[in-house]
């Protein structure tokens, strides 16, 4: 028996390209359905766990999936903006507590989430290092952001321009890292949290600059009177908020129309949730209120329908592959006919020939199984990240 394996092994090693191809094919066919299952389970877990814990979401009317995906998973698909007035609507209802979200900007590939401290209490997140943001321009970063960018408390992270040709004059804002969140195993690990007002500073709605009354270089002043100082665009704007210039930061325009991407509404109870939802159905023309659980359930329904289709495809591919493998083996044995007849002529029994072939198939099967299993282990290790990339971002 041992010698059968030895000979089979020698054959496999000698024909390594053919063996590797076979092993890859078999592994792939076995891997696909399991991988699909793992990814779907993980996506269901990731999507549902967060959806269940987020009772209601208020956002602009439109694609409710975009709203949920952006608000819960900070996906790149941005819903239309709503204004700060929407906060009042929720507040005035006395039915739910609003937690604002503004998830428009990014720092490198990580979303900048503008919110209030209430978000962390709501999600029950704890700060692992440092503290929560306290001042304008401070950031509290997720555990993965800290690990991957090697950021420590006291470091800083720069907001990225929305696009390369951002001509609107919005400067990147250098945000001080004041805290790192404990690992949450959710998308919050990959987010940069700042105060809502800081995101408005990134957008340019608020800014800090030199005191126009104290400009030393008069060439920067276009006109000056008791009540009006008009300056040129050369006036120095701050791209970092620190103790020295914090005082100069201020907001312009009517903040009641300042943008938000969504509001997490935490209802007092189920009845309040129902009443509030009803009001949005009947009163709100430009806003919608959604139950993330329902939206995600619908999405998962679609995904599972797709899965059934993919399963069928995989089955067909698997059958084709099995036939192909059968063909490969039978062709291979035909090519080895002379070798087999030599062995038989030497005095080898037919059962030993079968053993030799069986050992060869078994080795290939074991290798394929190991490759498939280890690939699945790797997939399982990265499933969170993969699902995030595939289904969320």
């Amino acid at each position: 028996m041992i010698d059968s394996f030895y000979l089979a092994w020698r054959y496999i090693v000698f024909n390594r390209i053919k063996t590797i191809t076979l092993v890859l094919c078999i592994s792939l066919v076995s891997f696909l359905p399991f991988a699909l299952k793992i990814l779907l389970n993980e996506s269901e877990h990731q999507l549902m766990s967060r959806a269940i814990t987020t009772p209601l979401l208020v956002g602009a009317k439109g694609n409710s999936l975009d709203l949920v995906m952006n608000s819960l998973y900070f996906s790149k698909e941005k819903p239309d903006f709503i204004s700060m007035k929407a906060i009042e609507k929720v507040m005035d209802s006395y039915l739910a507590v609003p937690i604002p979200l503004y998830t428009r900007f990014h720092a490198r590939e990580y979303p900048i989430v503008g919110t209030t401290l209430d978000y962390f209490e709501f999600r029950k997140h704890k700060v692992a290092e440092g503290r929560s943001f306290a001042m304008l321009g401070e950031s509290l970063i997720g555990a993965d952001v800290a690990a991957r960018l090697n950021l420590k408390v006291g470091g800083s992270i720069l907001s990225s321009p929305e696009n390369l040709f951002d001509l609107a004059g919005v400067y990147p804002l250098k945000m001080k890292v004041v805290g790192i969140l404990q690992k949450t195993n959710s998308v919050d690990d990959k987010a940069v949290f700042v105060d809502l007002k800081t995101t408005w500073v990134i957008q340019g709605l608020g800014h800090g600059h030199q005191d126009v009354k104290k400009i030393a270089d008069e060439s920067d002043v276009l006109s000056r009177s008791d009540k009006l100082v008009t300056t040129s665009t050369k006036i120095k704007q701050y791209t970092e908020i620190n103790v020295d210039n914090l005082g100069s930061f201020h907001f312009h325009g009517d903040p009641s129309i300042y943008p938000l991407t969504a509001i997490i509404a935490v209802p007092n109870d189920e009845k309040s949730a129902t009443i509030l939802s009803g009001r949005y159905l009947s009163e709100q023309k430009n806003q919608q209120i959604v139950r993330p659980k329902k939206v995600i359930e619908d999405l998962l329904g679609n995904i599972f329908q797709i899965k059934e289709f993919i399963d069928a495809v995989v089955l067909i591919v698997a059958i084709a592959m099995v036939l192909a493998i059968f063909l490969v083996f039978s062709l291979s044995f035909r090519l080895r006919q002379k070798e087999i007849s030599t062995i038989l002529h030497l005095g080898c029994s037919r059962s030993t020939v079968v053993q030799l072939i069986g050992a060869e198939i078994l080795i290939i099967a074991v290798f394929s199984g190991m490759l498939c299993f280890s690939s699945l282990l790797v997939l399982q290790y990265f499933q969170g990240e993969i699902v995030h990339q595939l289904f969320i971002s």
Partner: protein
Amino acid sequence: MNRSNTYFATKIILLSSLFLTFNNVNAEVDEAKLNIYTVNYPIKYFAESIAGDNAKVTLPMPGDIDPAFWEPKAEDVIGLQQADMILLNGANYAKWLPKVSLPLFKLVNTSAEFRDSYISLSEAVTHNHGSGGKHSHTGTAFTTWLDFSLAEKQAKSVFKALSRKQPKLNASFVENFIPLQKALLELDTELTEIGGALNGEALLGSHPVYQYLRAKYKLNLESVHWEPEEAPTEEQWNVLTKLLEKHPAKWMLWEGVPANETVLKLEALGVKSIVFSPTSNSPETGDFMTIMHENIANLKAILEKK
């Protein structure tokens, strides 16, 4: 200052009652003393009066600065974040509010009820830069408590917030609130009478902090921009002289005791000085009520002289 900032102090902070609902669900603080922060002394006084021993009320800024223009450091904000409740004055009082991060659930705007009655200021500095085009900084008058009917509403808002936070102590809060409410309404009545008796007597304010006082009690008061401890500049004197030509006032209300030299120089112009302190920050002696009584007594002096 500006409308935008007003917004933060008003609209965002509308949440007061809601936060309390949320807190009731999420926080069991019945056992410990409430940790309350306020943004000025009058609110602190109201909170202490109503809560009594059931709360530790903190005014986080040093005693020698105007709380409205306090610039907290991160450590101060962290202290505020730890509070069970943060009582705000509203009316864009705390200029620092838009620059810090506080949990919405903990904020209580004591003037939310009358936010439509805030008095707007016209003083502005307009400048032009960045992508926002030309814009101006306008503001809101914030010494709301100098209208004692509004002060009563603010006190009531504090009372409601405390009752919602700790319903078990409601009886105690009611017991404490009623005399406070009575005292504030008495001050209101008294000042209404004084206002009536002054009958349009021209008055000066050393600083633009008397908008609500003027509006509620129908005082004919114009303000300059002087500080009690600083000698006015020549330019400031000229502004006053011009003002006196069209507004022949004989009395100037000061936030604090003015410098002797200034008092004498004013007297030379026929203007007498009296103190009417808004008590924005904790007083060295006395409390909100004693100082308000002193303020009223000082106003009465005008009537007596008249």
